[in-house]
């Protein structure tokens, strides 16, 4: 599969850290021209320093104007867009009583509106390239999460969007799939509003919930995004692939 994406242009949202960064790197290694989208300027600049080969754009996926401007600049520069990876998102664990209106809005804006705005903006270019869309769901998208109901419901929405868009865009030859990772050890995970003192305990409980006995790495998720982005994966659409060490089976 080396250089499977030579000559292709790819957009990865939330590419400046964690799973998104690993995805951007893996797609670049396959020969793609990768555009990384990030919201926070300082984190974006740090990512630019780490990966000078990736083109970095600032945008908040929850703002449709930001998103349109970013996608337009990609198409203006390269003349095409082949793959969109909707990775940007947020998670914060909170019991129902502790879920504030603002927190609920932010979850849906980042995870559901953001995924939709980016896909809408990219659609004309994807129609022209008969491209692919890869959404990032989560094991939480199809498994109940006590204490994380808002996050889980946004990911259930992402899985539903994936299936509807797959049928809606199949006549245009556009494939739409999702990856549903289990618990992955990333910087974002460490900042997920779990008190730092509780983190080791939380990570241990995840290890117990995963049949393969450990949390995943960002790279283990990224390789399946590459597989679904591969123009050779021509007969796969509407699927949600669990990359979770078997977690969603139990």
């Amino acid at each position: 599969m080396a250089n499977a994406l030579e000559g292709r242009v790819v957009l990865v949202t939330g590419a400046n850290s964690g799973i998104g960064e690993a995805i951007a790197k893996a797609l670049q290694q396959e020969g793609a021209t990768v555009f990384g989208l990030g919201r926070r300027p300082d984190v974006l600049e740090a990512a630019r320093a780490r990966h000078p080969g990736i083109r970095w754009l600032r945008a908040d996926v929850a703002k449709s104007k930001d998103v349109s401007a970013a996608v337009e600049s990609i198409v203006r520069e390269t003349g095409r867009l082949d793959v969109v990876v909707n990775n940007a998102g947020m998670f914060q664990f909170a019991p129902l009583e502790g879920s504030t209106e603002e927190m609920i809005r932010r979850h849906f804006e980042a995870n559901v509106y953001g995924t939709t705005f980016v896909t809408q903006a990219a659609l004309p270019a994807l129609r022209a390239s008969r491209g692919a869309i890869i959404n990032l769901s989560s094991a939480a998208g199809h498994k109940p999460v006590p204490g994380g109901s808002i996050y889980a419901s946004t990911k259930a929405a992402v899985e539903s969007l994936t299936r509807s868009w797959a049928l809606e865009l199949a006549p245009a030859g556009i494939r739409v799939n999702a990856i549903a990772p289990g618990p992955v050890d990333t910087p974002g995970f460490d900042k997920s509003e779990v008190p730092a003192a509780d983190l080791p305990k939380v990570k241990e409980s995840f290890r117990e919930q995963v049949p393969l006995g450990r949390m995943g790495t960002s790279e283990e998720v990224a390789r399946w995004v590459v597989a679904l982005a591969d123009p050779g994966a021509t007969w796969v659409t509407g699927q949600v692939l669990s990359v979770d060490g078997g977690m969603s089976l139990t």
Partner: protein
Amino acid sequence: MNKLNGKVAVITGGSSGIGLATAKRFVEEGAYAFITGRRAGELENAKRDIGRNVTVVQGDVANLDDLDRLYKTVKAERGGVDIIVANAGVVETVTLAQATPEHFDKTFGINARGTFFTVQKALPVLRNSGSIVLVASCVANMGIPMYTTYGATKAAMRSFARSWAAENSRTAACA
């Protein structure tokens, strides 16, 4: 093209269709393949087609003695196996009203029971970090007239994959 260098794979139903395409690709990727099938003539054609790094073992996955002989051959020739692709299967399209007990037993015997014992009997020779792939069908999740028995066997295979993955290791069902 060497992702599977040094790996040993068993592919049941490997003399035609998806099984043959899988065997060819595995060998291209550096694996050694054992393929099984019920028809000796088709197996020999497949062997010629694949060209190298392949052993054919004639047999029916519904026959437990054939499976024992398969894994005995694998152990004798290669010492063990890394990848099992349980692909052998049959489909006969009949309505519920027309289905005979023979049709039911044959379909479940090959697709469900055959898959079950293909994997169970592989366990003693399956190396660490091995993987098991079951070839199911989209029909596992659908209701299609005349595919009542076939669909039920494929749903059973989908369920096998979930339980076996939870029980020990990497099992995938392709639907």
